[in-house]
Structures are given as C-alpha cells and as structure tokens.
C-alpha cells in the first residue's frame, strides 16, 4: 500500500469535498479568514475597545489573529478527524486500507486550509500593524505548525478511534474544545488574569502555541527554549500514544461501525 499516494488522494478528495458546489471554491480558504477578521475587528476593536496591555503592545486585532488561526487549524482538524473513521464506514467495510490514513488526511486538509489562511491574514495585517514581522516572524512561526500538527494528529487518532465505539464523543468535543481555547491566552494576555492562576495556564497544551505565535510574529513576549522543548516532547508523546491506541482499536472498527 502506497500510503503517501493514498493520503494525497484522500486530502484532495477532502479539500474538494469541503468546497465543492461553492462558486468561490478554494478561494474560500482566503475569503473566510478575511471575513472573520473583519467581524472581529468590528466587535473587539470598535465595540469593546479591547487592547493588549503594555507600552509597546501590538494592536489587539493582530494579537488575536496570530493565535486564533493556529487554534482554528488545531480545533478544526480534531473535530473533522474525529469523525473520519465513522464517516468512511462504507469504505472501511469494503476496502482494505490503513485506517489511520483517513484521520491523517483530514488533519492534513484542515491544516492546509488554515495555514494558507494564516499566511494571508498575517500578510494583510502587516499593512496595518507595524508590529507584524513578515520575514523574521511569520516564516519561523510556520515551523510551529509542525509540532502543532503532530499534537492535533495525536489527539485526532485517539478521538477518531473512540468515536467508533462511543458516538457521543463528537458532541462532547464540540462543546469542550472551545473551553481549551478560552483557557489559553488567545483572546487575552496572560498578564491580565490573577497572578495565582497564571502558572496554571501552562498546563493547557495550546498555551505554548498561543504565546509562541505572539512572540514570533509580533515580538510580544519571549519564546523560551524550555517551552519549545516541552512542546516537542508533549507533541511527540501525544502522537505516539494516539497512534498506539488507534492501532490497538482499529482491528475492531468494522465490528462496531
């Protein structure tokens, strides 16, 4: 089984499926984030007058956008991939294929769309906000997507396998995943919450990524090497554990689909 060609084929199918029937097609990958950013600009900046604390702080809109897009990739990947096995029940029942490819391709598709959106958004923001660093900030920041991808894939493998047995999981995830975002410094800076709570934020796996994107793209805060190290360790462990669990359960998918 040529897994690379197969994954590529599934990713193409996935992307085509998401945009099929719409006139703008793949352009939605760019329109959608631009539209969303415009809405955020109106709500948070015009209505709520949200600001990032600090003397030389970046504009709130860029602050929000550079962490929100990685989050969207992460959560979109997990929510889509969790149903990957269940949605392909017909295929699984008839064709022998490595089932993890189904999960992998959905995670790939989500990341492809949202990384593209991220690049577009950061480029657009660089016109309005002098804090946005395109070459020195955005390019290294794209590397952050690698451990983030591994993390999302690891979680997706776990959830996709469990979803086969317990169909409530996707409902539960749709409700609880946003909680993870609110518990990470995406909409706010860590410095504005009570000091006693601040360290706890680091337990959230996404906290590192939110702050790392802020640091790299906007120069807001510093990127600690220990943070990078732990993020890599966590992403690797989650991926390995997820794959192990998936392999353990995937022999039995057909019986429960």
């Amino acid at each position: 089984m040529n897994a690379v060609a197969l994954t590529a084929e599934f990713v193409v199918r996935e992307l085509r499926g998401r945009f099929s029937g719409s006139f703008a097609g793949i352009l939605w990958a760019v329109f959608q984030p631009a539209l969303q950013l415009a809405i955020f600009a109106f709500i948070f900046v015009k209505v709520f007058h949200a600001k990032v604390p600090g003397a030389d702080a970046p504009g709130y809109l860029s602050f929000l956008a550079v962490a929100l897009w990685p989050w969207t990739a992460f959560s979109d990947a997990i929510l889509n991939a969790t149903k990957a096995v269940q949605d392909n029940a017909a295929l699984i029942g008839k064709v022998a294929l490595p089932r993890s490819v189904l999960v992998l391709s959905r995670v790939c598709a989500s990341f492809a769309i949202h990384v593209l959106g991220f690049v577009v958004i950061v480029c657009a923001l660089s016109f309005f906000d002098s804090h946005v660093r395109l070459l020195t900030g955005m390019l290294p920041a794209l590397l952050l997507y690698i451990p983030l991808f591994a993390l999302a894939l690891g979680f997706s493998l776990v959830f996709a396998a469990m979803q086969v047995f317990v169909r409530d999981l996707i409902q539960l995830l749709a409700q609880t995943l946003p909680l993870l975002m609110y518990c990470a410094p995406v909409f706010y800076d860590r410095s504005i919450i009570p000091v006693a709570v601040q360290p706890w934020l680091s337990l959230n796996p996404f906290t590192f990524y939110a702050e790392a994107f802020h640091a790299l793209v906007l120069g807001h805060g510093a990127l600690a090497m220990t943070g990078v190290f732990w993020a890599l360790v966590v992403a690797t462990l989650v991926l390995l554990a997820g794959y192990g669990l998936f392999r353990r359960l995937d022999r039995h998918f057909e019986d429960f689909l």
Partner: protein
Amino acid sequence: MSILVRTSGLGKSYPKAFRNSDRLRALWRLLFTGREADGIAVLSDVTLEVRRGESLGLIGANGAGKSTLLKLITGVLTPTTGSVAVHGEIGALLELGAGFHPEHTGRENILMSAALHGLSGAQLRAKLPQIIEFADIGRYIDEPVKHYSSGMVVRLGFAVVAVLKPDLLITDEVLAVGDEAFQKKCIAWMQDYLDGGGTLILVSHSMYHIQKLCRHACWLRDGRVEMSGDVFDVTQAYLAFQERKSAADSATDHARIHDTEFSVLDMRVNGREGELPVSIRDGEALRVHARVHSRDGRTPVVAVGIARADGTPVYGVGSDMDGFEPKRGPDGDFTCEVACDGHGLLPGSYSIRVHPMDPEGVRIFDTMDRSITVRGNSREFGLVRLPHRWSSGGESP
C-alpha cells in the same frame, strides 16, 4: 506452485452490540484487557489453501459466511481466531461500486481506487488512460458516479482491476450486470488472466460458472467448511444437498400442490427415483417417467424438457404434439414415459423437467426437475450431437 492464500483455523465472530452500554464495555475491554467480548460466530475453523493458478469457487447458501471469508482474505475484516496469510496483490470486485464515492467523477474514483490498490502517483497517472479506455464509458468518465447506470459502475470497477492485474482476483457475480459487449470483454479478459497464471476466488450461485472457471471448490455451511476439494465433487454434493432440502420443504406444502388442477407426483429418470443427479453414459438411452395427478380427472398433456445446467433449453416436447395421451392408472393418476434412444446429449450436466399442462396444452401447472450428468470422453463442442457425415465435398448434393 506457490501458495497465494493460506488460512488456518480462521474464525470470525461479531460482538454483541445491541445496546449502547455494550459498545462502551467493548471499548473498555479492548483498551485495558486486550480481550474481545464473546460474540456471535459467523465463521469458524476455516482452513484452506489457494495456490497460484488454481482458482477456487466458494459456494453455500446465503448467510453461510462466504462474504465474511472474502472480507477476511482481503483484509477488510480482522480474524477473531486463526490467521490469514496472503502472498501477493489482491484485487477485489465485490459489491457494486464498493469504494466508489457517488459524488465524485469516474476519473476521480479511478484515481482513488488505484491509490487504494497501492499505486504511487506516477504509476497511477501512467495507467489512467488505459483504465479509462477499458471502461469505455465515454464522456461519463467526468460525470459523478451517482449518475451512472449500474452497468457503468461495474465497467469502471472492472476496468481498474483489469488494468492493474492483481495476483489474486476476488469476485462474485457482479460482472453479470454489464451489457453483452462488456461481458464478452470481461470474459475474454478473465480467460486471458487465468491463462496467464492469474488466480480467482469466485463466489457464485451458478454452479455452471464455478465449474467453468474454478478447479477447486469450497462449500461453506453455517460458517464451517462442509466440503472442499475438486470442483465437480463439491458442486455435485452441494446440489444434492440443496435438492434434498427443497424436497423436504416441498413435502410440507404438498397439500397446496394438490390443490392445483394438475400436479406432478413423481418422476423417474432411467427408472431411478430420488433427488440425486442421475448419471448416464454417453449414448445410453434416456427414459423419463412421470406420474401426474389430475384434480378433476381430465387427461393432462405432459411436457418434458431438457435444459443445460445453466438453463439454456436443449429440447422440449409435449405429449399432445405427438398425439399421445397419458394413461389413467387404477389409482386415478396419469402416467406416461418418454424414451429417447439416441439422445445425442454431449457430456455435461443437464436438467430434465416435467410439466403437466391442461388438456388444451396451453397452461403449465407444475414443475418437477432432475439433474442428469452425461458422462463420456467426447471432444465435440456444444450441447447435442447432430447427425452428420464428412466428405471431400466433391460429389454433387
């Protein structure tokens, strides 16, 4: 000859998952104890071998586990007990359009199924024109598969397999859906494939196809191998079993049959009663004896027909055509016998049918049939031997 597929002690049981709590319990058990819940066994202790070039036919009633066995061999299902070893590429053509996505075009689906067969991107693009050419469905190749007729779906599926030429082809009677021209193409390909050392696992309810394409057969019954071995032995045993079963069934509703105006009570072929196929030698006379019940005492017309095992009619004749009237016996039933001294049937399997008809010879009321096997070593082709003579062609007619 190398072994292509070997299963040993193969078994599959499905977990009992009627309630949602069963699913949760199953997940828990699989995660933490690694033990499977006891389930309902659909296949147990299947041990068989398929060697390269020796095709296998799978027969059995619905629900005997044939599909489950195929799914285990293709790797779609994981065995509960035992193991499967496959040495080679498998191509499976099982259900109509399996693996095709209805929303996607034929071309996209070809790419996907080629990828599922393990082709890399470059190989895939090289083979694509060949596949499209073989499928030969014209502009439909760029239409979504949901707009296809079932014949087109089969063409597409077959085209992928035909071009990829797997070591082992697993299929059932889906090929029967295509039109005449495509079927010819399929059969030509199949013959070529088998001649070229290809191996087939065929599931079919048509013993004719099984006998034609396979050397070995395996009869599954209630998830177990009832018999396996030479194709003729197994298919004959299976047919005999089926007939015994249907005889037992028909005995229960014999009363209903008696209710119709005319019914066949029994028939004998060459003096032999019973459901087992009668074997006659090439050239031996064929005598068909029938006893017919007439509800209102009118004299029926009795029609006797011979058909090849696949249903192709060979010959049929009614007693009225020859001006013969069945004779009324002391018990009120009518008997008749038709003897065919030089029947000319070539070696093979045939079925003989007896139908009572109304005295006008218009309506058929009942059917009883028997299989016969004509044995012989003739190398002639076809169904019957026609009277013929050879000459140099010089003399005038």
